[in-house]
């Protein structure tokens, strides 16, 4: 990933200049937008469901230590081995240890954003392991040597011509075809082979149920079921916030997740795993491991406002509805989680000084908040990130990194002018004197790149109402 040389502005310019990329995103996002709209047509019911989603997630967070302990206890009773990792490095090592213990060389991997957060593939490959992504989108970007550009549809930035060329070049013996059915068939053939010979399967976790120790996975392709059923060992990785209290919390969250992510009432498969293969059973992994990752989440939980970030169920609908994301795509954000949720999650995980640039990339249009299935007030939290950027006494890592005297003074002067009407009048008068011939520097230069400059009126409304004799009491 781009951690070292992360230059958001450069990424933005590159993305905006790529007309193919913009067309790919515009098409895909409007498709997902329409599909969600169709499945959540009943406004009142949708609102109720979102309220339930919010309650389920908040309740889980409010009892997080208790629920995680219960999850651990239940899983252990069920025969699932639970591991705790405070950092991504610890999580990677736990998984490598499990592989080494089984002398496992080949991993078949289902879709997992946490594993992306861990950069697991790179880590394992550096240790001589073969990692095969099996979700079609993840497979495509793995072949291309890229990272996901979307939480749900990782290869959404590529069109079928690009994928056709990629498959032809990278899959031995693959003929060139632009037919989607044939491209899928190529992937099926290649990956079925991999499932059959994998020594270990890896998956993410969409929800873990504390009450029963059950790991829930949502998918359409069946690769998740393959990874969690065919190889003799299954490792699931989850962020520690993904727990829910009870089995009865699952149906509303599932409904919200599939509806928000892809506009489906339900996905093809909802896979609930509670135990490894039991005696007498013919398939399923003999060992199941659950790796629970913190990576900064426990710190986020401390702040009553910021902890709402942890309500996220990773549906990606805020990306699909974001006017900024749909234009610059996921890679521009430079880190694993793009779009509106990325703007609040990434700085908390990676530090504002490194990632703060993305926080300015929001018009605060509130489209994300309107559709978030668990009602995370994303615009409020973006504002909070902006406050933290300038606040030397903030709490988010890297807070105050943007503090600078000129900008602080400008806002102080602005506040002063708007608190003392005489000053404001004077400022406007000064503006009027310049006769709209401000030099086009600073903000005005940016503004006038594609716009004419605003023309100050000769007379302010304050003056006009006075002249018209409007009451002022």
């Amino acid at each position, binding site marked *: 990933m781009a951690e070292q040389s992360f230059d958001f502005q450069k990424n933005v310019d590159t993305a905006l200049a790529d007309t193919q990329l913009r067309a790919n995103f515009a098409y895909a996002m409007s498709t997902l937008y329409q599909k969600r709209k169709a499945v959540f047509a009943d406004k009142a019911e949708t609102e109720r469901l979102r309220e339930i989603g919010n309650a389920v997630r908040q309740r889980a967070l409010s009892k997080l230590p208790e629920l995680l302990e219960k999850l651990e206890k239940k899983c252990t009773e069920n025969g699932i081995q639970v591991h705790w990792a405070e950092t991504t490095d610890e999580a990677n090592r736990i998984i490598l240890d499990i592989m080494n213990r089984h002398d496992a060389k080949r991993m078949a991997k289902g879709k997992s954003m946490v594993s992306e957060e861990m950069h697991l593939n790179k880590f394992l490959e550096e240790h001589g392991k073969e990692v095969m992504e099996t979700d079609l989108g993840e497979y495509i970007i793995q072949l291309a040597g890229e990272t996901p550009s979307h939480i749900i549809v990782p290869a959404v930035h590529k069109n079928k011509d690009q994928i056709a060329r990629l498959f032809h070049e990278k899959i031995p013996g693959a003929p060139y075809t632009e037919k989607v059915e044939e491209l899928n068939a190529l992937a099926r053939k290649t990956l079925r082979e991999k499932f059959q010979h994998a020594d270990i399967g890896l998956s993410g976790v969409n929800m873990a149920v504390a009450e029963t120790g059950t790991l829930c996975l949502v998918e359409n392709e069946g690769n998740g079921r393959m990874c969690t059923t065919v190889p003799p060992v299954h490792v699931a990785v989850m962020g520690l916030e993904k727990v829910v209290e009870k089995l009865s919390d699952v149906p509303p969250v599932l409904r919200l997740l599939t509806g928000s992510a892809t506009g489906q009432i339900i996905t093809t498969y909802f896979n609930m795993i509670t135990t490894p293969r039991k005696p007498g059973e013919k398939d399923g992994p003999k060992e199941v491991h659950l790796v629970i990752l913190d990576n900064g989440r426990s710190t986020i939980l401390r702040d009553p406002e910021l902890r709402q970030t942890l309500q996220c169920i990773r549906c990606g609908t805020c990306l699909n509805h974001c006017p*900024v994301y749909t234009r610059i795509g996921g890679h521009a954000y430079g880190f694993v989680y793009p779009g509106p949720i990325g703007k609040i999650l990434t700085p908390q995980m990676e530090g504002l000084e490194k990632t703060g640039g993305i926080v300015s990339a929001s018009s605060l249009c509130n489209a994300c908040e309107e559709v978030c299935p668990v009602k995370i007030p994303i615009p409020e939290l973006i504002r909070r990130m902006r406050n933290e950027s300038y606040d030397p006494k903030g709490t988010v890592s890297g807070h105050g990194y943007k503090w600078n005297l000129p900008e602080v003074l400008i806002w102080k002067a602005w506040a002063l002018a708007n608190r003392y009407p005489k000053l404001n009048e004077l400022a406007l008068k000064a503006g009027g004197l310049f006769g709209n011939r401000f030099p086009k520097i600073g903000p005005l230069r940016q503004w006038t790149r*594609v*716009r004419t400059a605003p023309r100050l009126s000769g007379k302010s409304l304050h003056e006009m109402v006075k002249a018209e004799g409007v009451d002022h009491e």
Partner: protein
Amino acid sequence: MDKRYPDKPDTVYFFGTCLVDAVYPEAGMAAIRLLQREGVRVVFPQNQSCCGQPAYNSGFPDEARAVARQQLDTFTRDYPIVVPSGSCAGMMKRHYPMLFAHDRDLNRIRAFSNRIFELTEFLVHSLKIELEDRGDPIHVTWHSSCHAAREMGVTEDSKYLVRQLQHVTLTELEKERECCGFGGTFAVKQPAISAAMVTDKIADIRSTGAARVLSGDCGCLMNITGAMEHGGVGIRGQHIAEFLWERTNG
């Protein structure tokens, strides 16, 4: 969204907004005249300035609070406060209680926020205004600011007023709920993204075939008309108050 509207009052406050004050005062005057024509006394306190949103959205909450307090201390009587902007109204109605969440005066601030109304919703629901169109036929489209749509929920009220005018044809934008790329300081902090957004918005506006684009928010108007002018697009932008006054006063 809980919405309660007062019956037609004798007196209202008018909060002009900083942008109307400096760049679009005619829109403010038109709004005042519309209110007055309905028999309502309009009070415009001279100590008013800005709702505080620019600082609030830019990472300077203390400065935003200082400026917000200026308005709280200025609009002290319990008249409804009419605002010719969905965005500024949203700031004062939805965000002041959050901005002052830890303030001793929170109850007073909540009461203030409850008195905030966006112009078109107030004309429709409290004044039950009936408009008689005296203008020539014209084809227009409507641009809703994000905050008018999502914080104030007044888009339908605004369009209802336009539709009352019998010689006016209204064609809606294909992506009416998508941001135009203004976003206050966003437009200058992320100029390239903002430019991409306003370019798409203008394409949407052009494809309606409308001769004029109306809006209830001057920030969006400044962005859209500035970009149209820069790009040589011959479509005029106008604040709804000015348009309504122009069509019905003659």
